[in-house]
């Protein structure tokens, strides 16, 4: 190593040191500490007693845990499919320039940046059984439902409201990712396909879709990673929909508090998440 290289390395470490310190102390260490905690009975005030594998046994014999896994699977399935498809549709629709595209773009990006806490109230009002416009449309105007229902009050229907909410909020980001790939597909390929006799639909399946394959996989994987941890969007809109993060939150901070059990839940969830992240880093980032 030349002195110049050594100086560069030293400078590099110096610059990145605060970051390493903060991230290590407040993310990597807590993740490991969490594994440790999962073997203890942990009180809210910090008092701990070693219980071995008891938390895991309790968790795996808890039917609520399995129903949370079921809810989470439905949530992931609905949101990932919905966001990707809507994002793709939006990208195809808005691909070519037209008058006012900037404004349309700003409008459809708004749900993505808006604070969850504000927009959930708008959604709650839309689905309100007394004043909400959804009930008005389906009951009074079209007569599809026979009576006004509280869709958010019932956990089964609330799950689908939460899924729709997530699609509404996160389709814009899928749209941006897909669009950036879509605009880079060259015109020649479409022309070649047209000469081969493919119509618009055929061109979509033979040119667009194969080109988008990689970016669609990226979107799906990213949605899985983020939505597995999704807390606020679900809890604030419909606290009765118990996906895994909400299940963990209830265990850790409400009712009969059992932080050790919550830690065990998080450990299992981290293991699943790590697989997704590893896949993302290896296959998508190709690092």
């Amino acid at each position, binding site marked *: 190593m030349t002195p110049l290289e050594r100086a560069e390395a030293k*400078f590099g470490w110096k610059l990145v040191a605060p970051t390493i310190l903060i*991230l290590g102390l407040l993310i990597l260490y807590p993740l490991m500490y969490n594994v440790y905690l999962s073997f203890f009975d942990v009180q809210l005030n910090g008092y701990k007693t070693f219980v071995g594998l008891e938390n895991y046994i309790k968790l795996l014999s808890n039917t609520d845990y399995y129903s949370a896994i079921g809810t989470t699977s439905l949530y992931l399935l609905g949101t990932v499919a919905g966001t990707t498809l809507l994002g793709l549709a939006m990208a195809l629709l808005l691909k070519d320039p037209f008058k006012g595209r900037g404004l*349309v773009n700003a409008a459809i990006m708004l749900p993505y*940046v808006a604070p969850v806490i504000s927009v959930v109230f708008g959604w709650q*009002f839309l689905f309100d059984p007394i004043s909400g416009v959804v009930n008005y449309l389906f009951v009074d105007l079209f007569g599809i439902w026979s009576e006004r229902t509280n869709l958010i009050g019932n956990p089964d229907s609330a799950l689908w409201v939460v899924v729709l909410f997530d699609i*509404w909020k996160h389709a814009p980001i899928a749209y941006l990712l897909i669009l950036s790939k879509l605009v880079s597909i060259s015109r020649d390929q479409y022309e070649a396909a047209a000469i081969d006799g493919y119509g618009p639909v055929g061109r979509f399946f033979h040119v667009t879709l194969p080109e988008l394959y990689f970016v669609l996989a990226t979107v799906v994987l990213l949605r899985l990673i983020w939505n597995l941890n999704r807390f*606020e969007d679900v809890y604030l809109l419909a606290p009765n929909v118990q996906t895994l993060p909400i299940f963990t939150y209830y265990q850790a901070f409400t009712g009969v508090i059992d932080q050790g059990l919550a830690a065990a839940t998080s450990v299992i969830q981290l293991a699943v998440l790590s697989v997704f992240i590893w896949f993302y880093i290896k296959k998508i980032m190709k690092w």
Partner: protein
Amino acid sequence: MIGKRTVTGRIGFALAILLLVSFSLLPFAQILSTSLKHQYDWGNPSLIPQTINLDAYKELLGLTEAKKVEIPAAIQKILNNPKLPQDKKDAIAAKYMSNDNLFPFGKYMLNSVIFSVGAATFSLVFSVMGAYSISRLRFKGQVIIQRSVLFVYMVGGVLLMVPLYQMAMNIGLASSLWGSAFCLFLIYIVQTLPVGMYMLGNYFRGIPFALEEAAMMDGCSRKEAIIKVVLPLSLPMLATVFIYCFIIGWNEYLFASVFLKQYPEFHTLPLALQELFVSKNAIWDRIMAASMLTLAPIVICFLFASRFMKGGKTDGGVKG
């Protein structure tokens, strides 16, 4: 692509755009509409209020004069009792007077601003340093750090809430007001730092090294080259990263609820709004007006940031 040249094609296209924009904007329109409606108007499905009602906004922004709350007759009788000492009288009266500001919106907004602007500032400084280091300088372990940052970036808050709370408890921070606030502040920095580093790292890689090299040949040190060359070239991205971090902090609910729930005077807006919603003071127009005011800074920031985002739109896109 889909026959936009025919008339039906054009109409279909316009309809699809209209549908999409309405779907995106309907909840916002509903919030705005309800915040401006009188109570008798709530059940009316029309989004346009029959008469505009600004009371909720006035109340939240403290523009109404402090109303004298009516003291019940029985209490008034006690107060008129000459035998009661004056200080006791004042104490009883105060109970009925202190109710006038039910929801100190300004205070919550200030708390939110302090937490999110403060954390975003620290985060920006650290991420400039870190991002420059991992994208520009060569040293052993660089790749591992790079991957760890990406990994850490994707670990959600829910996986950290129990251990972080327990850690804060162990060192005694979670049991005091300032300790809890300090923890939350640190957590906001941690939540935004990986995003900032990721976005800036990608951006720094795109700046030609020759520019720095030229500056260094002119006698600048590496540090000076960063400050005089790299940072001025990155200003739009720095602003975007700052706004991005600010938005994350402004919108955060989970950790605020874990650490600050028991300290109402330190509530941030999301926490305060949720508490208001489940309290007896929940009235739709007040909630909607508060939502509107929470939303406004973000919309302004977003419109400001989107002017910069023309080039690298998807840089922050992996988050969310």
